[in-house]
């Protein structure tokens, strides 16, 4: 690995390697979790780990028993005796045939890691059960005061590092608003908080934001990434589906602070709950969030296997932070998940009614089991129309004297016509089966049935019924239309479970593997229960949030931590297994996990809001942010806060909010703001064009933008929003030139800038005041004089230039659909639009401070 010497020359690559160094040279005893397992996992487990099929020399180093077992008179590890430990000799060997790891694995041990292993063996080679999987008990809080700070301050004190002071109040409210609501604070909110020096002002702010519906939206974005919510099916033609009611259910669940165990149960098994409500049915659509295909030529069996694996990856990723998907073809290389665990986990979902290939769905939108979800107005209208149709049918069935007379005449005429020789010139309507027969029967000999047949048929052609028939037909059309307009959403319906087998090497065509029934991963599960009872998705939910499951509360606590601090206590949010990262503060993580699982301080079990409140009311949360320098470049000690670019949706929301355009409605069908023409050209089956919404729908929050898995809106995609084809536990935060192009040139952003400029013009006359207004709206804080001067200069130059080029001003003002306010000087508006564009391109505008 590269050393410090090459760090500057290689830039990012070198930084990547530098970060690989262990935690701030953790003084004190060696920790197996933190120091040793990562080395063994990286360099040894692939051949000497849990995967029995790949195991070499019958040696496993992932368990103490395996590592210390006698093999041909040697032991790999003899605790406390490095000289007797074969492992020490092999990792230190200079013989390429003997040295471990073997050179061809390209995983040589560094000298530092070799030393660490030797020290660990010399000091007794204590194994620890993996930090994420061992039983969860509540550690004692090391000091009085805020428990989060107690744990963090204890580590800071041990390391001799002092935490940074509290950030200024304008920064604090902006940080908290982004973290809890995904929105920037309005300048008035900033002023109010800065001025509120009363005790507990912070706690009041926290409570206000936690109670906001926008807090629920913000958490929903986090959860929707994990469960891979989208508005299209993902495979091949990537056709649209109606899934937004599930998204809205998630928002409502967070708004109501639904306990996480119930949240889990309703998603995995809402359909199985006795008397399942409409909301629980929608929640259980979780099981239908997998990608689906309507591609011709697909085999059902293959796609059943794909969907099953998809669900295992997503569910294990979202709840367990586990890479169980790795065990599809072989036992997991690093974690004790077996292939049987993988397929047994998949079997939980074998009762979900589904097809492999949804033939024809590209044309008719039928993705298996679906329900219609009328709005209350639609439902009322449907009931009304159904009643009207029924009444019209009743009225049609009544014989009036006029109808009876017309019928008698018709029967007479038809009878005569049938009796006469056929007239080739006459165009007689073809009579339905039986009617002609009845007419040919003498009047006196017709059965009652035949008489009714004649009457019924005549009713459909009679002049006397024509107005009523027309009315009925109109009503029926209306009813059809109101039903068709109701969203149809895929839902989970339980059917007789499909047979699930272990697929050898993951090959779906190979039926030779053993059949499995639903079961949770063996090494995490207590034995017992009734082996004859087939477990259900509800049992899976119970196991995930049961008292004996130590994984889920740790994973959840760690991910909630990342919402407040930018990274987890264990930074590998997608993998809490052996290849993950030991937490920087294991006791704190366990304490928080217990607080979640068991409740505490007035909160019930699985109270997400309570946990977030704990995090953001800590002093650690409120510290100043600073860059990583010195001996703790990655801020593992949490002596400071972190700055980072906000998520894709927040970028959009922040710009819209700055201009006062943001529409803060919650929920509803997804929306389609402008998108470059032709962006969907390579979709097919069917071909589609993006029909952009204008006006208010175009200014909804980013989370409501139509989520097309294959072609996500480019303004979201460039800011690292995931396609949601797979579970995403952590979004990357990159900085690319394409992001700059979006912020500079996207017509949507230009329109937003113009709206902001128009507000500035309306708010103030003096250039400095206008510039300050724009910066204030973009940044939340009061700008410095030097900053104001930059924008004033820009406005002046552009005003001068545009006065000689009014056509350019008009063209700039013509971008988008938002009308310019009446009576505005177009040159001034265009010049100040330049200033607003600058403000909406600043690093700080999109930085969570």
């Amino acid at each position, binding site marked *: 690995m590269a050393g410090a010497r090459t760090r500057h020359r290689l830039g990012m690559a070198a930084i990547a390697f530098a970060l690989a160094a262990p935690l701030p040279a953790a003084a004190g005893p060696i920790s197996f979790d933190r120091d040793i397992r990562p080395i063994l996992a990286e360099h040894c487990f692939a051949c000497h780990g849990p995967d029995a099929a790949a195991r070499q020399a019958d040696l496993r180093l992932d368990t103490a028993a395996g590592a210390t077992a006698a093999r041909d008179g040697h032991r790999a590890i003899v605790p406390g005796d490095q000289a007797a430990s074969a492992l020490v000799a092999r990792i230190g060997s200079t013989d390429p045939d003997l040295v471990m790891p073997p050179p061809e694995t390209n995983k040589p041990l560094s000298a530092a890691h070799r030393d660490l292993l030797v020290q660990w063996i010399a000091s007794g080679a204590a194994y620890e059960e993996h930090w994420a999987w061992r039983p969860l008990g509540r550690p004692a809080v090391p000091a009085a005061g805020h428990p989060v700070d107690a744990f963090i301050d204890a580590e800071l004190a041990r390391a001799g590092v002092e935490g940074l002071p509290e950030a200024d109040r304008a920064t604090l409210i902006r940080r908290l608003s982004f973290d809890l609501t995904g929105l920037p604070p309005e300048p008035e909110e900033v002023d109010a908080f800065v001025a509120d020096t009363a005790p507990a002002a912070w706690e009041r702010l926290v409570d206000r934001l936690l109670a906001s519906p926008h807090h629920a939206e913000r958490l929903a974005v986090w959860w929707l990434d994990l469960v891979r919510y989208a508005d299209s099916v993902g495979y091949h033609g990537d056709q649209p589906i109606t899934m937004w009611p599930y998204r809205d259910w998630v928002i409502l669940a967070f708004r109501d602070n639904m306990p996480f165990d119930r949240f889990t149960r309703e998603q995995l098994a809402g359909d199985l709950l006795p008397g399942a409500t409409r909301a629980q049915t929608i929640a259980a659509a979780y099981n239908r969030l997998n990608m689906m295909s309507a591609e011709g*030529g697909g085999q059902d069996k293959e796609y059943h296997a794909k969907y099953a694996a998809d669900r295992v990856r997503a569910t294990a990723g979202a709840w367990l932070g586990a890479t169980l998907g790795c065990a599809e073809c072989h036992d997991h290389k690093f974690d004790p998940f077996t292939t049987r665990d993988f397929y047994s986990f998949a079997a939980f979902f074998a009762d979900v009614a589904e097809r492999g290939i949804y033939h024809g769905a590209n044309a008719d939108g039928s993705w298996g089991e679906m329900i219609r979800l009328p709005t209350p107005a639609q439902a009322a209208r449907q009931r009304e129309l159904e009643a009207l149709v029924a009444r019209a049918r009743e009225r049609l069935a009544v014989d009036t004297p006029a109808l009876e007379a017309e019928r008698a005449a018709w029967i007479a005429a038809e009878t005569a016509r049938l009796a006469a020789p056929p007239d080739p010139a006459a165009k007689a309507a073809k009579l339905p089966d039986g009617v002609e027969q009845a007419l040919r029967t003498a009047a006196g000999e017709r059965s009652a049935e035949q008489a009714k047949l004649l009457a019924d048929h005549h009713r459909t052609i009679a002049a006397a019924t024509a107005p009523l028939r027309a009315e009925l037909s109109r009503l029926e059309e209306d009813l059809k239309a109101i039903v068709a307009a109701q969203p149809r959403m895929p839902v989970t319906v339980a059917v007789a479970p499909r047979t699930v087998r272990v697929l050898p090497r993951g090959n779906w065509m190979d039926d030779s593997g053993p059949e499995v029934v639903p079961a949770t991963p063996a090494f995490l599960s207590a034995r017992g229960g009734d082996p004859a009872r087939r477990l259900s998705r509800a049992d899976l939910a119970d196991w995930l949030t049961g008292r004996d499951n130590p994984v889920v509360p740790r994973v959840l606590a760690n991910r909630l931590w990342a919402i407040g601090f930018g990274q987890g206590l264990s930074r590998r949010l997608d993998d809490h297994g052996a290849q993950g990262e030991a937490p920087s503060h294991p006791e704190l993580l366990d304490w928080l996990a217990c607080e979640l699982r068991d409740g505490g301080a007035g909160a019930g079990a699985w109270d997400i809001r309570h946990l977030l409140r704990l995090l953001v009311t800590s002093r650690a949360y409120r510290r100043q942010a600073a860059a990583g320098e010195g001996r703790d470049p990655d801020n593992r000690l949490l002596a400071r806060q972190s700055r980072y670019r906000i998520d894709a949706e927040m970028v959009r929301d922040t710009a819209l909010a700055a201009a006062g355009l943001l529409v803060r409605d919650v929920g509803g069908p997804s929306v389609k703001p402008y998108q470059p023409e032709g962006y969907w050209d390579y979709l097919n089956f069917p071909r589609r064009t993006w029909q952009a919404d204008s006006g208010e729908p175009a200014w909804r929050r980013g989370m409501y933008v139509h989520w097309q898995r*294959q072609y996500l809106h480019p303004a979201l995609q460039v800011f690292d929003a995931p396609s949601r084809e797979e579970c995403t536990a952590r979004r*990357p935060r990159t900085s690319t030139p394409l992001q700059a192009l979006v912020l500079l040139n996207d017509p949507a952003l230009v329109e937003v800038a113009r709206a902001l400029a128009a507000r500035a013009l309306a708010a103030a006359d003096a250039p400095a005041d206008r510039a300050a207004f724009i910066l204030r709206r973009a940044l939340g804080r009061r700008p410095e004089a030097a900053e104001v001067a930059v924008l004033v200069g820009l406005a002046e130059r552009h005003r001068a230039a545009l006065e000689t080029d009014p056509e350019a001003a008009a063209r700039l003002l013509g971008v988008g659909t938002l009308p310019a306010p009446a009576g505005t000087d177009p040159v001034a508006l265009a010049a100040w639009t330049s200033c607003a564009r600058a403000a909406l391109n600043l690093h700080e505008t999109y930085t969570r401070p």
Partner: protein
Amino acid sequence: MTMPHPVVLAPALARRGFLSHASGLGGIALASLLGRAAAAAPLAGTWPGIVRPLHLPARAKRVIWLYMAGGMTHLDTFDHKPKLAAMDGQPMPESFTKGQQIAQLQGQALRCLAPQHPFARAGASGQEIATIFPEIAARIADRIAIVRSLHTEAINHDPAHTFMNTGSMISGRPSAGSWLWYGLGSDAADLPGFVVMVSTGRFGQSQPIASRQWHSGLLPSRFQGVEFRSKGDPVLYVGRPAGVTPDRQRDVVDAVARLDRLRGDVVDDPEIAARLAQYELAFRMQASVPELVDLADEPASTFELYGTKGGDGSFAANCLLARRLAERGVRFIQLYHRDWDHHGSVRDHVKGTAAEVDRGAAALVEDLARRGMLDETLVVFGTEFGRTPMAQGNGRDHHMKAFSIWLAGGGIKGGITHGATDDLGYGVVENPVTVHDLHATLLHLLGIDHTRLTIPAQGRDFRLTDVHGRVVHELVA
């Protein structure tokens, strides 16, 4: 110790020093716009590549991948099967198909369909090529290595594309172009290192092509392929807003830089420098991209060679742009032609689609050779799978057991045919080549040991070739 995911890292840049010492961003941008400083300024935003030094001597510097999307039939193009002609209309022997995966022909009687076009020997090497590729046969037969023994693991388009591009059918793995950009960086200072273009034909069902095919997956998204479009802005949002002149755009960007720097004086945030660099690159792209697609500097002979004046979104026009991108140092250029799905009328439609790509592909190879660039450019002419020897009406179904591609240029032995299928072109019988092998060979030719270019994620090291892949040395000159 495992390595953190690189996406958690700041982009490549010196830290605070940049802010105080760099000349103003506006200065750099303006100079670039005027064409003076592209080579002069240290390009703070460019990525040098993580494989330094190279694992192996490089035989090629870049890749141009001509991707025949939809499943190009091997039986009517590059894999001559006279015995299949003799069996035309007869039942496909069950010995071939029993227990095998079948796509749209599931449950149907399987009958042989003869090759629909004659083959002829071409070049001094006597390569066998169907006559529907007259330009490839006449101009470059001796430069290409035909591989008749590719096979894949996916029988449907969507997963087969994903497998061909990323080495996995599961979404979320980096595509080959992203791997190469990440591994080697790019010599293109003002352009992305991985560019994708897509053309549509008139003879097949237009293949849906997901942006997943050029996604960076587990790698940082800066390594994602950038699509160059034939209508609208060539690169999304590269065009300035209406009514904004280059001068005024520069003025806005300068104001942004000044304000960012003022903030940088107050807060300790190295990301500000990274962002300034990205704005600088974005600004340069606003000049370099239009310059790239403006063909005014090309002589008439170029248009004659490619058979297009450009600007029409055709495959040939994209081939010409590919050469221009290659000249500017872009690492990986991928051209999709999404017209190869021929479930019916394979005779006429394959001929039509072949005519859409024949001249452009041949012209590109010849043009690169004339300019002395072919030796350092690996050209791949490939597809996601082949088509069945069995008839589907008068067309052919998807087939994953065997298909053909060709390679040319950097490090490739021209004028050879590698691997063979059985008499009916159903399965590979000689020198099978997997998609992982193709990827391993591609990386090898660019100086990378495919087992050593990895990214840790989701608990393990991922690589383009997963845990497979063998370099096909027989193809290497």
